[in-house]
């Protein structure tokens, strides 16, 4: 039998996991900003590729966060 305490505990665990995923989304956003700053400072011919990868990485992080909200 699932008690109210169990539900509260699992809700807290879910909150912790979602916070961790959200933290990674924030990190991915900072990486996008970081790569923009870095490629503006130094150009070596890979700027377009790096920016694309950073945005794909950010989109992936957001997608995983949304998935975590749904399945946890």
């Amino acid at each position, binding site marked *: 039998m699932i008690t109210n305490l169990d539900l509260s505990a699992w809700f807290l665990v879910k909150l912790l996991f979602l916070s961790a995923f959200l933290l990674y989304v924030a*990190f991915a956003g900072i990486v996008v900003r970081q790569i923009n700053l870095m490629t503006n*400072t130094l150009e070596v011919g890979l700027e377009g590729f790096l920016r694309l990868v950073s945005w794909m990485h950010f989109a992936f992080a957001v997608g995983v966060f949304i998935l975590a909200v749904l399945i946890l």
Partner: protein
Amino acid sequence: MPDLYVAKEEKPNTSEAGKTESMEFASSHNPFSSFCYRPAKTRFETQEREEQVVLLLRKHPITNLSWVLLTVLLVFAAMFFDYLPFFSSLPANYQLATYVLWHFLAAAIAIEGALTWFFNVNIITDERIVDVDFYTLIYREISDTQINKIQEVTHTMGGLLSIFFNYGNVKIQTAGAIPNFEFSQVPRPAHVVKILQGLQREEEQEQIEGRIR
């Protein structure tokens, strides 16, 4: 009085000299290279229009070993999660979430390590030396000094790895506002010093000829 003998003036074969210089400092023009002599597509933020990049330096790739090993270790460690008692008691969706978060941690370490290595560069142009440093996620520092303000250049190599892989530190003393520059753990430090000395001679020659830019 007529000349009895006129020696033929031998003009220096600049193309041969240029070829020799290029051969001596031959390097890969791969954008991931850590020693790139006269890179083709490189520009930096404060570069002047006529300024040419002579050398682009990064830390030797072997210096990335620490974060690479840590990343590999983290990825391998995830394989042993099933042996942890509390992990097995978690529901399947939380187990999956733990795996994903763990790999996100490994990815974060790898991304930061790679970006820090790739964008922290030392640039030598025909006019100055530039040090580009990204200290934290979005804090950067760009320092530069003119080649003609360089007073002393020394290079050091110490340790088994640096001797084996030929990398070391190049310390540059200048008369500028920033008295010391250091290119740390760069490949072929002796060549870096040679290039700097060559550029110093060119600057002196330009000063003598009045061709200062």
